[in-house]
């Protein structure tokens, strides 16, 4: 966990509105765990004021011969332009300076018993699943990626998962890629086939809520990676809390998404009608 003043190695649009950014990040390949995130500051002045949280997509090392420079460790992000911060990020270029705080938070716990793993990603929620897939594949487990999105442009980086040996299943709302419909329908089918699988999910609240219902019904282990509005990312501001499973008006039990999450066992959380509160 460190705060680096560092530079961008590359930053390019990979699909309309989606970018991929690599940042020089010594130490990340050794330190970063699947499911962890970073807080990025892209401007020196006060507008926008706060850093923005992003999941770690992957880490790696550029070999020396690639660039005529010494070996360089990097962290890679995949992000969607949604507001002022990400808009500003999309204008940055190789060599531009950024401040990188991380790796932060608790990542995925590798399920010790299951050998079948279903990774469920909705849109940009696919980001933290890549390192998880890498790690699971490395220990020889079977990994399936179930990914949903509005249309083909929202389905990212599939081939990279496939290169790991992950079987991928795609569902889009408009049927422009994979099957037409919700990724949760795919999940139900797969769980019927692999009832002992462990499930890991990241995506919009509505999707997580549906995934949780399915897993609860089927009594399979589920870990979810949540998003929340964050100011600090280090547990100081208490802005990012989410109600724990025992939470009630009278006996509140809040967990910090940034410090105790962003990945939680589904059972740690309160699951009201609309999904875990506070997850935006």
């Amino acid at each position: 966990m460190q705060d680096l003043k560092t530079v961008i190695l590359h930053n390019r649009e990979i699909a309309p509105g989606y970018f991929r950014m690599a940042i020089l990040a010594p130490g990340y390949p050794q330190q970063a765990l699947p499911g962890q995130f970073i807080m990025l500051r892209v401007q020196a002045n006060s507008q926008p004021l706060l850093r923005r949280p992003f999941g770690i997509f992957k880490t790696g090392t550029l070999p020396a011969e690639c660039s005529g420079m010494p070996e360089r460790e990097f962290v890679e992000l995949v992000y969607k332009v949604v507001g002022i911060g990400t808009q500003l990020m999309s204008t940055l270029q190789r060599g531009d300076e950024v401040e990188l705080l991380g790796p932060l938070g608790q990542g995925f716990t590798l399920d010790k018993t299951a050998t079948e793993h279903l990774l469920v990603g909705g849109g940009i929620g696919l980001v933290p699943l890549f390192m998880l897939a890498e790690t699971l594949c490395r220990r020889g487990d079977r990994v399936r990626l179930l990914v949903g999105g509005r249309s083909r442009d929202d389905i990212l980086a599939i081939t990279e998962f496939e290169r790991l040996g992950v079987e991928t299943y795609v569902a889009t709302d408009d049927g422009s890629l994979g099957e037409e419909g919700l990724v949760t329908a795919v999940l139900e089918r797969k769980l019927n086939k692999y009832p002992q699988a462990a499930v890991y999910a990241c995506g919009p609240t509505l999707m997580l809520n549906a995934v949780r219902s399915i897993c609860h019904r089927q009594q399979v282990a589920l870990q979810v990676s949540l998003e929340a509005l964050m100011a600090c990312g280090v547990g100081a501001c208490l802005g990012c809390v989410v109600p724990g499973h025992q939470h009630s008006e009278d006996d509140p039990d809040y967990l910090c998404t940034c410090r105790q999450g962003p990945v939680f066992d589904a059972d740690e959380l309160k699951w009201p009608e609309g999904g875990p509160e506070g997850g935006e």
Partner: protein
Amino acid sequence: MSKMAKIKKPSLAVDLAGLQLRNPVMPASGTFGYGQEFAPYLDLEQIGAVMTKGISLRPKAGNPTPRIAETASGMLNAIGLQNVGIDLFIRDKVPYLETLTTPVIVNFFGNSLDEYIKVAKRLSELPAVDAVELNISCPNVKQGGIVFGTEPGAAAEVVSSVRRCLNKPLIVKLTPNVTDITVMARAVEDAGADVISCVNTLTGMAVDIHKRRLHLANGTGGLSGPAIKPVALRMVYQVVQAVEIPVIGIGGIMTAEDALEFLLVGAQAVQVGTANLVNPGAMADIVTGIETFCRNQGIEDINDWIGSLDQ
């Protein structure tokens, strides 16, 4: 200014109602956890004091989410004073604070006069606590102090009650959401405050036109960050003129320059809030920046800078 002066290491030490601080930079309550959270980013022995988040008699869950919203050069928070309560604070947080040589200041609040007094008594017993900061100004929770903080009589009552049962320096933190802050400042000074810290957050609101609703679950929140610095500077300036006791300046301090501005208008020390959230190492940069400025300007002692505005 001689060349000698430029070379010597300037003294940044300040005295705050008897409390000796190695420099005038400390965190603002609620932006620094209980201290330990920041140890990976910052040498806690490098700052003037450690300030905890606000403690209350019983644990407090705070507000529902969303609790934060970003605004132009600022942020709104409606955390709602979530904290572990005095018992867990003593059990879980104080042992770490005891290991520090840096003075420890505990911020606290109550929902009633009685609660204020009870917490003050408990804090009196703790040798690890070097001073306390009384929050009479949090704008988030109805019983969290807004009544005490905007009415001079009520403020004076809580301050004098706490003063009576406390054996340490008492800092009273003022809210900016008042017509005339000097009235409040004089009231708490007369009631026995040793130091005034100002300001807390300005009450604000953010609206989401796409969802047609207020951003924060709580409706309103406290505005902090660079956006409020001009208002904070004005109030600190006014309070410094109005009272005899030392004043701690708070509001939008992100850099050494910002801190030097508050010191120049007469603040004896400063608190850094939102900047810690943006950059957990902010206070270390600020201390270094103040030192560099003093060296370059030939200021041997920061006390020569404090209040030295050319008027």
